[in-house]
């Protein structure tokens, strides 16, 4: 529209011509600027890691990779990580399926409580489970000291248990989503044709859910192998890739090996990111639409009901107990040993300072992230330039990249001019911005897809130029997406550990790093209290987000009405 109009504008002088040019090309100018930012803050750090891993004193070398393959320790760290990912994926998918089946097909009274419990880990940083396991099974744990149960927590099994509990909601949410969208008539038809419930699950439900379960599994796999906190706190002498990179860099200052481990970790993540995005889209089974049929609660056979209930309740109980012990540990001297009520952990000065710092950094990250995310969404949806889908892919790829890799990347990339950022607050905020960009961008894209381009065209038809249209029409409509992006970035940034652990400078500690240090040094009370503070902040954010989506949902419809009328 703007382009067509510019033909009729009298182009008397250079300034006028420039103005029309800018107006017509503003989307593309924005796109170029945003792309530049993505290159600098997302692609360049990754490339820096790649370069570091192959750059020897005399040019290119593969000697570090050779060392990785030869030295058993490094290689074990790879196999351990993959095995951890595999076990976690299987367990989370099975538990997620049982939970999802019960909350969509099971007895009505059970659905809501199970759903709440299975989503609880979402409000906590994943390493909450490492802390709760230490409280229960550590050297001074309740189970160890009070009940005399000896379980060597530090090692492979401990990490597996913590990671499983942390990633159940991810698997659950995705599987529940596909299960809910599965037409219940399909299962009913099988039932009608004589199949029992077990046969229905085996021949209809699972085959039809397979793409969804696979998708959930891939995501759990990526998240697990990239997760840093649990493995670093509970790993003990068992090597895993993500914490080993940390030890390489921070402990031994061996940047080359750290980079090699990062590249090794990034390969499965990138493969899965592509699998996830390209192979599985369109692999959905299409069925004839009819009236949407609510899934009525059906009588479950004991053969299905009891094992499902057993698995679900066991997982649910473990989650609830984990939260419980961390909460109690925040208010007792040493939970299980000296149960005296104290406020010293909560009042701990370092902890509160770290929380304050985290809020500051996360607010900065949220603001920048929301702005960039909204603009990116706009150029991705409305832009008409070549390479749009590439920009979309890059901006969404942040979440698939392991935090540790981004951490090292930033350390390598922004350690020297022209981008000297290390040691400052901005590097802490910026890595969060680009890691968690996906949510803001996706919220923006879906918002923009809801409104037709005719609204903008009507605005320019009435004489507004691009900037006016953007300011008066697009921004108000996209505001809910902006807010969603803001709060989401804030929430994820404030609990994130894996990247910032490389980037914090001594005088400026962040809450997540403080929790990590406290857990490692056995200050469980402080670790618990700080974790609980983060949980409270996340809960507050979720409440605000919930409130705003309800509120702005209303506002949007009203605004849309006034625009069209």
């Amino acid at each position: 529209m703007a382009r067509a109009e510019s033909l009729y504008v009298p182009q008397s002088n250079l300034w006028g011509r420039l103005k029309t040019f800018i107006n017509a090309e503003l989307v593309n100018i924005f796109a170029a600027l945003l792309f530049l930012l993505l290159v600098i803050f997302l692609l360049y750090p990754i490339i820096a890691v790649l370069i570091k891993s192959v750059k020897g004193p005399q040019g290119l070398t593969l000697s570090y990779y050779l060392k990785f393959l030869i030295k058993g320790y490094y290689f074990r760290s790879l196999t351990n990580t993959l095995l951890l990912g595999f076990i976690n994926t299987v367990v989370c998918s099975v538990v997620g399926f049982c939970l999802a089946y019960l909350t969509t097909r099971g007895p009505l009274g059970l659905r809501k409580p199970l759903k709440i419990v299975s989503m609880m880990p979402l409000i906590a940083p994943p390493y909450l489970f490492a802390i709760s396991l230490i409280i229960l099974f550590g050297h001074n744990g309740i189970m160890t000291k009070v009940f005399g149960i000896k379980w060597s927590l530090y090692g492979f099994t401990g990490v597996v248990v913590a990671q499983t509990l942390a990633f159940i909601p991810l698997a659950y949410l995705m599987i529940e989503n596909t299960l809910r969208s599965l037409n219940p008539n399909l299962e009913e038809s099988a039932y009608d044709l004589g199949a029992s419930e077990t046969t229905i699950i085996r021949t209809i439900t699972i085959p039809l859910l397979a793409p969804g379960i696979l998708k959930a599994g891939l995501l759990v796999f990526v998240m697990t192998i990239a997760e840093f906190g649990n493995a670093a706190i509970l790993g003990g002498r068992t090597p895993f890739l993500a914490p080993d990179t940390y030890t390489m860099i921070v402990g031994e200052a061996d940047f080359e090996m750290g980079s090699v481990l990062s590249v090794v970790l990034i390969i499965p993540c990138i493969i899965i990111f592509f699998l996830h995005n390209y192979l599985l889209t369109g692999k959905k089974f299409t069925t004839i639409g009819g009236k949407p049929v609510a899934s009525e609660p059906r009588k479950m056979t004991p053969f299905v009901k009891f094992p499902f209930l057993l698995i679900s309740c066991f997982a649910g109980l473990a989650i609830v107990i984990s939260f419980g012990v961390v909460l109690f540990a925040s208010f007792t001297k040493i939970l299980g040993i000296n149960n005296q009520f104290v406020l010293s952990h909560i009042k701990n000065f370092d902890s509160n300072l770290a929380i304050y710092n985290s809020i500051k950094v996360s607010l900065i990250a949220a603001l920048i992230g929301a702005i960039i995310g909204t603009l990116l969404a706009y150029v991705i949806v409305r832009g008409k330039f070549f390479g749009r889908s590439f920009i979309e892919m890059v901006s969404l790829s942040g979440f698939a990249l392991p935090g540790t890799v981004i951490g090292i990347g930033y350390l390598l990339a922004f350690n020297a001019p022209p981008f000297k950022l290390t040691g400052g607050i901005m590097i802490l905020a910026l890595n969060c911005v680009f890691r968690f960009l996906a949510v803001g961008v996706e919220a923006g894209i879906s918002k923009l897809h809801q409104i037709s381009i005719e609204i903008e065209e009507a605005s320019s038809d009435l004489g507004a130029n691009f900037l006016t249209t953007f300011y008066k029409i697009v921004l108000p409509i996209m505001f809910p997406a902006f807010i969603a992006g803001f709060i989401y970035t804030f929430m994820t940034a404030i609990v994130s550990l894996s990247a910032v652990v490389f980037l914090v400078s001594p005088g400026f500690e962040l809450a997540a790093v403080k929790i990590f240090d406290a857990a490692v040094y056995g200050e469980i009370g402080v670790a618990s209290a700080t974790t609980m503070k983060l949980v409270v902040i996340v809960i507050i954010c979720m409440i605000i987000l919930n409130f705003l989506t309800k509120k702005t949902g209303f506002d949007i419809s009203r605004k849309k009405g006034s625009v069209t009328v």
Partner: protein
Amino acid sequence: MSPSYSMPMLILNDIHKFYDRLEVLKGISMDVNKGELVTFVGPSGCGKTTLLRIIGGFTPLDSGEVILDGQKIDHLPPNLRDTRICFQNYALFPHMTVAENIGYGLKIKKWKKSKVQERVEELLKLVQLEGLGGRMIDKLSGGQQQRVALARALSLEPKVLLLDEPLSNLDANLRLTMRGEIRKLQERLKITTIFVTHDQFEAMSISDRIVVMKEGIIQQVGSPIEIYERPANEFIAGFVGFVNFLDGTVEKVDIGLGKATTSTPIGEVHFVPEWNINVGDRVKLVVRPETIDISGAEPVGMNNTFQGEVEIGMYVGSLAKYTVLVKGQKIIIDQPNPRETFFRPKEKIYLSIPENIHVLRIN
């Protein structure tokens, strides 16, 4: 016919169903005879689909009985009932071929592989899909999917076939064809069938008997002709086709001639009463648009002739539809095969109402 011989295939006995506190079925009782095609019809929310799901075993009932071929089945799950359902969206298994879909129930019943194959071929032939057994479901047209769903439901030779709005996903032409085919198939197999639809014309054209439902209550059960010509109440009269209602009070009854006269807003109307009628009874005349004659000149020797003015005239080809004003009352008239006699707005016309019209008593 001896009583035991005419035992109904399906008996519904005082079925009640609540969703929370809302009563969606308020005491449904009726019989379906062997080999009969019965249609449940009614506006959305009338409970027809819920009733069908209760018969199929997908929705538990709160009280009442479902008796299939002499056996109480309302406590049984769907897989242990001899009823088979065809869902509105067909619910074909998208990860299986046509043959695998049709053979699914047979496999569950542990039929031998060769037997299954034989039966599937037979069913494919029955629904005219020979040679398509190896196709995947999403490679079929809507009509073909409909046939597969039908074949799958028929595979186990159910005692009662349940069809839930089976034609609503097809386009208009295909719907007519499939309607005929389903009826032909049903008559050939003599299979007892319950057909649910919201489309009254579909119900009229396919059924042995129609069950008209509204708000969880059966309004009337009868053959299509009975339902159309002698609707039990205003709702049914208006539900199957358009109708002009004329309210009146009976002024004269001539028992000898079998005739009565009633006052209406357009004047006196003479009619042949179908039931015992008395002077002073309040009645509602049910006048179908296609039963009214319309002409430009006053017809000679006809009762019930009124003068009116055309307000709206719509020429549709095979017929013309008019809204005519008679003494301020709007009357809808269908004129078959209008050709050159099509009347235009403002034209004065004469309309004649037949004497053998249906009359409802108003209490």
